[in-house]
């Protein structure tokens, strides 16, 4: 009986970086999972929450709870959305015992993509091939709230013909931070710049991460600086043959 997972591609993945979501589906199907995409999904609500608008965030979270009520596994190609759902939803529903219970219960069903592969599917080698020199950026929420550190590196180590090099500033924030990136644009750009300087030292062609928002921030700044490096979501590397 095929195991079922539901995909939450995130609003940014849905609109700007769909290939990452498709790649997640491909990798999971390749491992024998049946992947469904609940059409009613929209956003996890983090933009409102991070901007201090908790009522609005709650309204969006409420919708999410409904959409994914029946899903056994929810796979998310993002650490920030993953941690919003898994860690902050409970804060939003502190005063509603029934919904709070639903949140705690949801926490067990939501999986950031790389964690799902390693802890649920329990695979490290998904049969990928990616003949390029890459480095890895530790997305903050995934790193510090979900404990995602060695996982993606283990997955990358199994990719054929891939040359991996570690960057000094791997754990430093890329500077996205949602609306921070536009409210404090110059600081955000500066943070990206520091990250890119470290990236450049590695000589890597690609910087990989598990979060499209980080990749968007880095790619945008890389292009503005006229540099050749490219960004790619981990899922897309793992889906490469």
């Amino acid at each position, binding site marked *: 009986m095929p195991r079922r997972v539901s995909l939450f591609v995130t609003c940014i*993945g*849905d*609109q700007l*970086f*769909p290939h990452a*979501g*498709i790649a997640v*589906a*491909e990798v999971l199907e*390749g491992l024998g999972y049946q992947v469904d*995409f609940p*059409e*009613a*999904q*929209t956003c996890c*609500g983090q*933009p*409102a929450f*991070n*901007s*201090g*608008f*908790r*009522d*609005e*965030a709650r*309204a*969006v979270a409420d*919708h999410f709870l409904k959409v994914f009520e029946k899903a056994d596994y929810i796979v998310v190609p993002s650490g920030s959305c993953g941690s919003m759902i898994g860690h*902050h939803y409970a804060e939003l529903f502190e005063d509603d015992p029934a919904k709070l219970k639903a949140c705690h219960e949801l926490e067990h069903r939501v999986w950031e993509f790389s964690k799902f592969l390693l802890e649920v599917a329990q695979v490290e080698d998904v049969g990928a091939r990616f003949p390029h020199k890459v480095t890895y950026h530790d997305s*903050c929420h995934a*790193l*510090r709230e979900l404990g995602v550190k060695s996982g993606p590196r283990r997955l990358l180590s199994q990719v054929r013909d891939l040359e991996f090099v570690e960057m000094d500033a791997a*754990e*430093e*924030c890329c*500077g996205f*931070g*949602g*609306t*921070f990136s*536009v*409210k*404090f*644009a*110059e*600081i*955000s*750009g*500066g*943070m*990206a710049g*520091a990250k890119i300087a470290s990236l450049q030292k590695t000589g890597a062609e690609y910087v990989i991460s598990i979060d499209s928002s980080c990749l968007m*921030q880095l*790619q*945008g*700044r890389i292009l*503005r600086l006229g540099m050749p490096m490219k960004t790619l979501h981990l899922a897309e590397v793992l*889906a490469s*043959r």
Partner: protein
Amino acid sequence: MNPIPVESLHKTLSDQSLQTAIYDSTARLMLKRRNAVTPVPEFQELRSQANRIKQHAIENLDYYLEQLEQNVMRRGGKVVWARDAAEAVGFVRTLCKDKGVRRIVKSKSMTTEEIELNHELEKDRIDVVETDLGEYILQLANEKPYHIVAPALHKTRFDVADIFTKELGVEREEVIEKQTMIARRVLREKFLTAEMGITGANYLIADSGAVVLVENEGNARLSSSAPRIQIAVAGIEKVIPRAQDLVTFLKVLGRSATGQPLTVYTSFLSGPRRPGEIDGPEEFYLLLLDNGRTKVLADKNKRQSLYCIRCGACLNHCPVYRKIGGHNYPWVYSGPIGAILSPQFHGVTQNPWLPFASSLCGACGEVCPVKIEIPKILLELRSDITKAQSTAGGGGLERFAFRLFAFVMRRPGLYRFLTGLAPRMFPGKQGEWLRDVPSWMKWGPVTGWLSQRDLPPPPEQNFREMWRVRQRQSRPERQRQSSEVR
């Protein structure tokens, strides 16, 4: 209500040598911390223990303050309580007048910066001398500290040479070791002639009536031992229950701050010198300061902000601090701890931008030796601010935008419709990131984004469209297609 200090931020961000100084110094401190923490397997346990002790002390603060007071008095010291900066400063000024104090030596104390003690004492024509090397340099330059632990982080040896030549009239000296010896010579004379020494306190020990001072130079020892009168100025939150708790705190403080298992000097001082002791102060005062701490204490979720032991680790690890430095924060406390303390002390509407000047990366909370949940508090403050702005009738546009956001995100049909429109409206070439956009697109966030980065183009098909097509294909066909694309 102060707006984002855009010009000042821009100045700091454009100053390449300053950027290098801040980035490199903090990188060094981060590395030192890592090297001191990695070989200690029980470090995480120590953090938890430190958090628990602080929690207990803060939750029972009145009890421990009273116990502290009793024990200080038992040892011959006096305890003075100050509701605010004015009272604290007033006490010191009066004491100086009564005792004929003309010169004061001070060791580093953020609390005395907070109450602007030096500035007030100078009005009485008292020679107040900062004796910590970094603070001394800044005092000569008339600047505020740049960092909680490394106050002159932003100064190069050439800056110091300029300052010493100008303020001390010495021959220009650019060698750091020699500069240090100049300061040593000048300050020694001050130590030995000052009538009063003022220190801060890293810890106040309730069961001992003691003040603990942690340092590397020796100036806190000198300030607290050479002059006749000693005053230790401390926020009420500094009290911990037992001397034995230092077993936990001393192990996390030095490592977190500068990567040292123990700093060079740890002084445990209780009261004036005792009968028989040869030296030490004749009079000892502990000046306990509220100045808004009870306000912070009143908020159950945020009172953990008072656990802070002023190690500076959060500053060193904060990617925002590492770009903007210490002077762009509105108060003496900078970095992440400053970002959560300032609004709580001064009210959230004074600098409403401050808690938003963070990408919420969480590096601060990860390294805090007493496990203050800084990102969580930042998020709460953000919520407090939007509520306060709403009450005051402000922040309307953003609130409206997020109301709209929530409205759309709860309605999948509407969401699909609106997002279907977007690619058609996008001006650029297919798949190319944009450097610029037509003026009708130049609003808030877009302009903000474009000021630093190219704008990503919406793809030819969004995820749903790709998914729909994909689902119609059979599985082998799908796989063949996707490997061709790559």
